[in-house]
């Protein structure tokens, strides 16, 4: 498993990185933690004659909490997410999800930017970002723009980001209420058989708002508005949870693979979602 030959670039500014992308066009690709890209290169499924390493660009790092708005630089690692006390307070679901990604070695290197930009339906952060209603900041030759996570994913490995853009930051509002990230996987280091991100708020005895996203159950993350709606105004009891499961089931489109056939995945997706809702509700 040896990648094809490539040139390695390590720019120390965003402008230089964008310039390199311009110069080399299709032959260039940025690398963050490399833990999705390098395996693809080694399998020769990705050929990248010009590899642009973003590690030296300090402007892409850092976590800022500005009132109720959280901003993560694209190069923030999953490990940093787990360790950051402020973040764990303001949006604890992030830590809960990050802890279920891969293993510590991968998390030391893997970044939030790489995870969401990758477009792999197996990645956990895209669904989570949809659940959180995150915005992605993209910088390209024509300037800066912002794309909602819920509008970012088009197909497996196809996103709204154009080849000459770099994702620089992710922002989303702090969460209130209950949360849960529930994931079934075959082992540590495995992608999800099914995963559910759930955010709920409660007013009195009923659910005031909800957001639900599912991972690895379609070729893109699935933000299921209908599933969330099924909970709002209910006490998140069995009936409501069943309704949410049914609504979610209509939105996902899993494929068969080594993790199992479609019927199994649909069943597990339901169980995982029901567990996530119960846990989130218990935390409201």
């Amino acid at each position, binding site marked *: *498993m*040896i990648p*094809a*030959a490539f040139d390695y670039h390590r720019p120390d500014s965003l402008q230089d990185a964008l310039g390199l992308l311009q110069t080399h066009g299709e032959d260039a690709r940025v690398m963050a933690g490399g833990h999705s890209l390098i395996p693809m290169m080694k399998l*020769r499924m990705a050929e990248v004659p010009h590899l642009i390493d973003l590690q030296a660009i300090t402007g892409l790092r850092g976590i800022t909490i500005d009132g109720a708005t959280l901003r993560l630089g694209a190069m923030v690692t999953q490990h940093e997410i787990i360790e950051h006390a402020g973040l764990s307070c303001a949006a604890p679901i992030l830590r809960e999800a990050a802890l279920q990604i891969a*293993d510590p070695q991968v998390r030391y290197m893997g970044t939030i930017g790489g995870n969401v930009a990758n477009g792999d339906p197996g990645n956990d952060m895209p669904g989570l970002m949809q659940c959180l209603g995150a915005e992605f900041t993209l910088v390209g030759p024509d300037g800066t723009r912002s794309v909602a996570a819920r509008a970012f994913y088009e197909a497996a490995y196809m996103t709204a980001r154009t080849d000459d853009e770099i994702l620089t930051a992710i922002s989303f509002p702090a969460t209130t209420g209950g949360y849960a990230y529930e994931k*079934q996987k*075959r*082992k*540590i*280091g*495995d*992608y999800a*058989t099914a995963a559910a991100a759930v955010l709920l708020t409660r007013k009195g005895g009923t659910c005031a708002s909800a957001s639900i996203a599912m991972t690895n159950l379609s070729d893109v993350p699935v933000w299921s508005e209908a599933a969330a709606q099924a909970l709002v105004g209910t006490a998140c009891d069995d009936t409501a949870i069943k309704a949410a499961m049914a609504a979610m089931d209509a939105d996902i489109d899993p494929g068969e693979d*080594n*993790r*199992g*056939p479609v*019927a*199994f995945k649909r*069943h*597990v997706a339901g*169980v*995982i979602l029901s567990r996530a809702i119960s846990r989130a509700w218990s935390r409201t």
Partner: protein
Amino acid sequence: MNDLSPERDNRIANLKGLGCSRKRVEDVRFTQGKGNYVDDIKMAGMLHGDFVRSPYAHARVVSINTDAAMALDGVIAVLTAKDLEPLGLHWMPTLAGDKQMVLADGKVLFQGQEVAYVVARDRYVAADAVELVEVEYEELPVLVDPFMALESDTVLREDLAGQTSGAHGERRHPNHIFLWEEGDKAATEAVLAEAEVVAEEMIYYHRTHPCPLETCGCVASMDKVNGKLTLYGTFQAPHVVRTVASLLSGIEEHNIRVVSPDIGGGFGNKVGVYPGYVCSIVASIVTGKPVKWVEDRMENLMATAFARDYWMKGRISATKEGKITGLHCHVTADHGAFDACADPTKFPAGFFHICTGSYDIPVAYVGVDGVYTNKAPGGVAYRCSFRVTEAAYFIERMIERLAQELNMDSAELRRINFIRKDQFPYHSALGWEYDSGDYHTAWDKALAAVGYDTLRAEQAERVEAFRRGETRKLMGIGLSFFTEIVGAGPVKNCDILGMGMFDSCEIRIHPTGSAIARLGTISQGQGHATTFAQILASEIGIPADSITIEEGDTDTAPYGLGTYGSRSTPVAGAATALAGRKIRAKAQMIAAYLLEVHDNDVEFDVDRFVIKGAPERFKTMKEIAYAAYNQAIPGLEPGLEAVSYYDPPNMTYPFGAYICMMDVDVDTGETEVRQVYALDDCGTRINPMVIEGQVHGGLTEAFAIVMGQEIAYDEMGNCKTGTLMDFFLPTAVETPHYTTDFTETPSPHHPIGAKGVGESPNVGGVPMFSNAVHDAFRAFGLKQSHMPHDHWRIWRIAEGLGLHG
């Protein structure tokens, strides 16, 4: 002499001999990253080889164009079958009496098969060049199902056209390899026909792979000046490799030196001879430079020796009271594209006929049909080609099925049918002589240790709670009682390519009283350097810390058949003890001379010879060693050396009682092993800590195999599990906690009573974990569900039983 004197105890402790949990001497270098593996070997001017492999499972090779690859800077050569043909090396014999393509000769028979071999300046250039070799294929119909292969008009092995018999007798179909039978078929059928109770089941033990941490590889170095070929490699049987290399290449055996350096796990994966070795040797001969070839993980998983792929159709009969009366088994064995097992010539299904297990079964029959399919060849790994793991899984599943038919507790069914202690040596219906055992004692100890009755009560409560809708988790109790057959083996029965399966040890005592011992085996992580020194320490009274153990260099080590099939301790360990006794016999004469008494007037005492009745007059082994080199002793040659070649009179039969407890989530298919208890009886225990390590490792392998590990193919013959993302290797997180225990029933025929333990936990662990899954669903009527029991397959069981409501 006062035997209980602390002084004597100290001397015994100082030896770190038999029974001592001595820390593994190997670990000092392994834990510091100072191991020396094949890929660590670097030689001046060394070139690198890499394979072009077939993307298809069955296809004709229409053409191979190497021009673009040859044009790449740094590429030295691209070998194809055409280049090997003049040397007669485009095919090679397998260890099972078949032959195998080295490089695709006109067609390919499995995905990942070697098609061309690129030799380049470095491995990066080699990998690039592989991409540039253009191969045109014409796809052929693919056979991945052995039952369909035996019906199909598609002929896989066209090279065998018209051959109605092979190395193991008649071939009744072009895709048939052999039918091998043992036992009394007619008598078994008669018993089954009349039986009060019969359980019948098809039991599939899926294809898997041992996936050693280090993949296979070699460095071949032909020195054209002195005509010597040196071959470093991941060889579990370096001497056999030397002999095969000599026979294949025509280079005289004394001009070949084979070296196995540190090996990062073998598990049978490194017994066979792979095309990579042959191509590297040829490339080195052609270029005059050393050539290194090391597989990557995908190549290792997809193209090297797999394990299992046995379809075992069983019938077992019993009286209403549960006394077993007969066993019938027919196996359809999927060997892949070539029969590349490493079996003794007599036994094309290895020792599968140990499948009567630990039970006194009066009459039995087995028949095994070997079949070619479009899958990777092998069948060597994970308990070798000896098929003992398959046999143990088969009988332990059949016992569970029979218990179901009898509506009986399966622990009790085992107890009723165990071979009794007083029946040893026991002659099985299928022809083995079990050396020793005490199964009832071990079983009772195990059941008591886990609190078996309490567990069953808890399980019954759980089933009730499940039925009431209070839980979605069932509880399974996995029972397994296995009898291993290891220590291959008696030369009269056992050979590899005609070479008897003896083993050897050669000892040299140095003048200052330390020693070196060399053996014909080779450690791949088993800790030979630790344990063999302990055997010797107890035999010759020299501390284990003062004994170097060396293996794996054919220029220095005595000839041996290598390490696999848990044979090292039973065979080479015996040779070590016997060579030690030769040393001791000579030492006795030297001591007597030095003490000026008759030979018979001295006796061995831990680390010295003492005058009988006057223990204060003695000569230590250290003094004796020195005297051996500095005194002229009448009637004795100088020096203190010995060599022993040991042909075991029988196999050894370790056994064990394993029990686990598992929770099974019927909705997600997830499982959690709550408890594992493993009692092993491997005869005399040389190093309890090493044994425990072996048991932990083997249980983890078993856990992996049962709970998810497989080499799976789609109907096109594409390997679906070629990376560690999909091939299940448990991490520390998934791996259960183990409790180990033991009984000690020495082998009566082994010099120190040791039986071997390396594979017991793999053999016994698989039925234990699998039985636990089955047991969880027993209350709902599950009879048989094939492994691996990964999440979706467990979900499918529950779905099939209507548990999803």
